[in-house]
């Protein structure tokens, strides 16, 4: 459960979230981050509370049971599309980043294709196996991740003065855009819509859990926003496309086999964004599968509906990678974050309706 939340949190460090935050840095980011922290934790709490009532059932199953057809089909389609897009944003961002920083000569399509092939296999796995993969890979990467952050924070080039300058802007009223971007990091919990069917026992969500999640959230937000500023300065940071990667590039390991920290950073985040992509697309696939079932698509007694969606996902993402450039990616993903509060609203609405109908 934690993994779902944490992976999404950490994955957003390389995504567009820090860039949006940095660009908005003079428009009350700090305040909106604090607000997002509270809203995010409360949101997580309520989502888990709702799903605890229906333990062992996934979201589509709940909706199918308790609501009528005209209601649940659009909701699930909307969710599926949002989830697909969330995954695709991570994918495209990472592919751009990889091409920019590591191998300039490799065509975008090749990198994307490598992702799509492996993730396609992952999407078709059982949901249970996705969870196990998530756990295993995350546990493998965690020590390196912590090392990375410690290394960056303790680096002598980090100027805390800049951080203090940034802190001074605390009293400005938040902007909607920075708020939605900051709260996006808490979206991981929504993956429970599918994985809830594996949580047979009720998830405990008491004070301890809340404090863990809010602490980690706060730390992640803090790192996301302040560390790049500390390295690059409050004024200059706005001009960077990938504030975080540029930051990690400024750290050197004197005695390491790999001298530039940025490569470790990129390799670790390859794992993290892969996990995030895997989970998002898997959930999206399951959502689509729950409503669409093409009886005609059959080959050797196997229904090919899920394969169809997998191919579709891959094709769409490859198409998008070739069409979009970095500026557009940034623009679209910030739109995407902006409409996310609507997503919360719909989720709560549908859960509420289901709860009323089920009379629990």
């Amino acid at each position, binding site marked *: 459960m934690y993994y779902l939340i944490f992976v999404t949190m950490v994955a957003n460090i390389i995504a567009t979230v820090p860039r949006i935050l940095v660009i908005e840095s003079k428009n009350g980011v700090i305040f909106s981050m604090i607000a997002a922290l509270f809203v995010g934790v409360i949101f997580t709490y309520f989502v888990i509370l709702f799903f605890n009532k229906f333990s062992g059932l996934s979201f589509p199953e709940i909706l199918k049971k308790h609501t009528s057809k005209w209601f649940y089909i659009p909701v699930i389609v909307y969710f599926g599309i949002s989830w697909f897009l969330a995954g695709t944003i991570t994918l495209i961002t990472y592919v751009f980043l*990889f091409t920019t920083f*590591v*191998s300039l000569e*490799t065509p975008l399509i*090749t*990198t994307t*294709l*490598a*992702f799509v*092939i*492996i993730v396609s*296999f*992952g999407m078709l*796995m*059982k949901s*249970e*196996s996705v969870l*196990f*993969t998530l*756990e*295993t*890979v995350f*546990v493998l990467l965690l020590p390196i991740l912590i090392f990375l952050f410690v290394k960056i924070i303790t680096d002598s080039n980090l100027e805390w003065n800049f951080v203090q300058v940034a802190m001074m802007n605390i009293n400005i009223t938040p902007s909607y855009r920075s708020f939605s971007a900051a709260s996006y990091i808490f979206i991981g919990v929504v993956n429970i819509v599918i994985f809830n069917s594996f949580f047979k026992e009720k998830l405990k969500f008491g004070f301890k859990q809340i404090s863990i999640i809010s602490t980690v959230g706060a730390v992640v937000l803090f790192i996301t926003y302040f560390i790049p500023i500390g390295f690059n300065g409050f004024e200059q940071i706005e001009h960077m496309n990938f504030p975080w990667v540029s930051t990690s590039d400024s750290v050197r390991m004197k005695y*390491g*086999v*790999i*001298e*530039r920290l940025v*490569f470790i950073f990129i*390799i670790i985040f*390859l*794992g993290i964004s*892969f996990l995030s992509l895997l989970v998002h697309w898997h959930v999206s696939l399951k959502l689509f599968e729950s409503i669409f079932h093409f009886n005609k698509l059959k080959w050797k007694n196997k229904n090919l509906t899920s394969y169809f969606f997998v191919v579709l996902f891959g094709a769409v993402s490859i198409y998008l990678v070739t069409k979009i450039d970095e500026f557009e990616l940034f623009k679209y993903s910030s739109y995407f974050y902006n409409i996310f509060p609507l997503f919360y609203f719909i989720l709560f609405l549908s859960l509420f309706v289901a709860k009323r109908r089920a009379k629990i």
Partner: protein
Amino acid sequence: MKEVVEKMNNSEDILTIPLQLGDNYAFVLYLKTVVDGLKLQNIIIKPFFELKSTEFFSSYIQSLPDIAKMKTGDELLIQLTKGHVLIAIQEQFFLVDIKMITASTPQPALMEPTIYGPQLALSEAIETNLNMIRHRYLEPSLTIETVQLKDKSHQSIALIYDKKIVKQSVLDKIQKKIKEMNNPLIESSGDLQLFLNSTKFSLFPVLLLTERPDRITYNLANGKVVILMDGSPQAIVAPVVFYDFMVSMEDNYHSFWISIFTLILRYVGILTCILLPAMYVAVTSYTPDIFRVELALSVAGSRLGVPYPSFIEVLFMLLFMEFLIEASIRLPKAISATATTVGGLILGTAATEAALTSNIMIIIVSAVAITSFVIPISEMSFAIRICRYVLLAFTTLFGTVGLMLGFLGIIMFLTNKESFGEPFLKINWKSTKREKEV
């Protein structure tokens, strides 16, 4: 009795001996090649002449410890071929098991040797093996089920488990699998393991073959099912998880830090074995700038004069190494030493001097060769060896991304596998010794 002889196609080794003493007479029918002649003489033929009447003799036969249930038809024939003796006393028939057991002595452990711990492995006779296991695992809840295979070998196999702790769902699945099996010929437990495996094209083993009785009892104590097959010195353990393949029995006989150290060593070995060749391709052909400048230069420098891309170089060297390994397994012991020496010389010096490969490649190949033997269970090391090529292909196609993603893909593949309903790779938080338990 004549019927039986005819059904056996009058094979030359089938014998019918009439026993007669005064009015008392009996017949003994058996296959000479599988029956212990001395034992037969001592426990059946001698008493016949010592006892006064056939009634005494028949009650004596009935009280023999080796008496078996009377069978009819084809089953009787199978029992005869297994070393049972058919005795006819007037109108009564008895079956007595007087098998001649060859190869019943336990052999020293060859595949999984340890420094401490028991040095003897299983033998090739199922009775001896069951005896060994019973001796080591003295719980009364230990259950042994004997099943006969339906194939041409008609070997008996034994399912062994501790009734108190075995997982019922797993046991049911295994029993069902064995019942459903209909293959023409199963020769050894290795064979049997393949048929118990549910998928046709499998790479990673989902059952563990072991020859060590201590590993068997260790697994029994953990609630697993052990399958023994007559005539093969390996037992099958099911269900298994990935970590089971990484544990050597030695780990239990060493102190804590030593076993942790060796365990870490093995995991590092497995990682090296999978990643190193692909990493070489990624670093030389795709992203030489990852390493610090000195290292990148020395790698590139040693590749000077190598006339083809790095992946061909890696493939070439790896293949030669595989040939060498395969040859030294197959060759008789006396010759295999020569093969390794010659091969080592060729791979080591001559290939570099001929500028076919770089020096660093030689180091990598030997590291990979050594690390692939670090894995205690040889089946897993074979699977890992194949994985290496998959990863190599993926890296060659997609570069550094391919290396990482391919590795993640292998992890995914493993987590998606299951062994009789138990997930193959997952982190088990509840137990402190997570590598060692189910």
